[in-house]
């Protein structure tokens, strides 16, 4: 075996250990709730806790709403920039990166100042309005991931020519967007959607400061007061995230098969 290959293997093993060992440690600890024996008691306690079900359900609903609003906002925007306003791309990319630069706590205080109960648009005056505000704040938080995923998908197809081809066949904008463009960036949109889901499920700062019963604050609450349950919750959150990644791979593979040249192509 070449020396460079050995080096690569060593790097891979060290990297894997760095990620896997803490995970194994957390998993092992989560099984120790029953004294002297391994058990899934911590998982049972967590999964049967009504607050777990309520907060997880709340965050899931909010994640789906965030995904829908994010897709409706980002796909037409990225499409239009690619097609007609490529000069604006650097500005839009900069704007979409801002949520990574500005801490969530700064964003949420900004929201509270603008949409607080004494403002012109008091979105914190009732729970439903605050849910909407939280959902929009999640859209902002997920913007860097959603925009990049969609933009990458759009760059992989010839948006301009496909649009022109559809236009010359009589199609209007809605038909072009939903029948031609959207199906061809489906995997990219799903990628952005799963990333958004993973972000929303674990988000703490915004939900906590807006005082909403989301999964993130619940994780923090359990983590501060219990011993084994937080480890079980961490493993559950990890499984949810990896399930999202797995689904992404499944959907991605379906489209790759569509794009791959068939064997025995005739020239």
């Amino acid at each position, binding site marked *: 075996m070449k020396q460079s290959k050995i080096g690569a293997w060593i790097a891979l093993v060290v990297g894997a250990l760095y990620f896997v060992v803490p995970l194994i440690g957390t998993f092992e600890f989560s099984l120790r709730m029953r004294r002297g024996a391994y058990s899934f008691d911590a998982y049972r306690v967590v999964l049967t806790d009504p607050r777990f079900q309520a907060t997880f359900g709340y965050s899931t609903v909010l994640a789906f709403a965030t995904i829908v609003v994010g897709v409706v906002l980002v796909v037409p925007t990225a499409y239009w920039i690619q097609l007609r306003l490529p000069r604006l791309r650097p500005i839009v990319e900069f704007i979409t990166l801002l949520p990574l630069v500005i801490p969530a706590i700064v964003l949420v205080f900004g929201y509270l100042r603008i949409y607080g109960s004494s403002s012109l648009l008091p979105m914190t005056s009732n729970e439903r309005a605050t849910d909407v505000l939280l959902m929009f704040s999640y859209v902002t938080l997920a913007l860097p991931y959603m925009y990049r995923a969609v933009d990458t998908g759009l760059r992989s197809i010839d948006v301009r020519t496909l649009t022109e*081809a559809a236009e010359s066949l009589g199609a209007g904008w809605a038909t072009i967007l939903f029948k031609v463009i959207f199906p*061809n960036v489906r995997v990219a949109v799903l990628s952005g959607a799963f990333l958004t889901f993973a972000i929303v499920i674990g988000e703490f700062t915004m939900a906590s400061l807006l005082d909403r019963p989301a999964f993130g604050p619940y994780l923090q609450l359990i983590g501060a007061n219990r011993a084994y349950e937080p480890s079980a919750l961490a493993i559950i959150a990890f499984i949810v995230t990896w399930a999202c990644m797995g689904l992404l791979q499944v959907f991605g593979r379906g489209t790759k098969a569509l794009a791959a040249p068939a064997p025995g192509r005739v*020239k």
Partner: protein
Amino acid sequence: MAFLEIESVRKSFGAQHVVQNFDLAIKRGEFVSFLGPSGCGKTTTLRMVAGFEAPSAGKIRIDDKDVTQLRPNQRHVGMVFQSYALFPNMTVADNVGFGLKVAKKPAAEIRPRVEEMLRLIKLPALGSRYPSQLSGGQQQRVALARALAVKPQVLLLDEPLSALDAKIRVSLREEIRTVQRELGITTVYVTHDQEEALSMSDRIVVMNEGKVEQIGTPFEIYNFPRTRFVASFVGTLNIMRGRVVDPAAGKIEVDGQPIVAAQGVAGAQAGEQRAVALRPEAVTLDQATGDRNRMQGLIEEVSFLGAVVRIRVRFKESAISLDTFNNPNVPPPGRGQPATVSFARADLLVLEGAPGA
């Protein structure tokens, strides 16, 4: 009467004038090619006809209706792109039927029309395949079927064969021409390939730097180029530096050797420098008699190309290339040998403008 009229159309991007005063009238059922090098404005003109670019000035009429301000989806023109532009998420049949679905035609009408189009392009069994499962040639045929399925008034093709290999290109251009003749559809074809334009078109529009250089039939464009650009762009051409001796009699000197142009040298003054041109196939390597022009020089290069042998004969400043058929019984002449070339007076073209212009 013209079916597609392009009237004084101009297109500028900022200070750059990419199409300048383009005028053309195309008859119903005619096949017209825009021929020229990259950046000459041919694709921009086509895109203005399709509605993808708005002219800076001028009008475009289809069947006597002004379509200049109409959106592409209102013009009823079919477009075939260089990159095929098939929708990757749809099957071949769905691609071909897309325009009909958009027009809200009933399924009972769409299906037979799609089948008819697939038969027309000789791919009746491939309706259920995806574009990625087809070869480049097949994809372009599907793109053609898709454009024709909606029965457009005008068919526009933007370098549709450029991405294909040479053999497929030749067979596909014959297919396109056959289909066009069968349907009698008015067609505008953009290409930078002179062979494609010459073999397919009823008329050719040769363009350069945003301007129309010449409009004519392939026969006229090839045999009677009006400008040096057309002469050099269409076919292989020998261009030599000539000095006009007697304009009325068509007498010219090339490297001190007198030759005669049958049609005279209209508008030139004695002593004026003019570019003179000759097609390689008009020149023979012999001691011809009669009223043919003769010039003497030295053989500079002999290229054996299989069926054809290309020979370059150098005079002084100018040189001439000529093609002879390969004859196994007569070996080609050697380099450095003295040679006499001859050509008919009628084959000598005196181009407008000074040499090198």
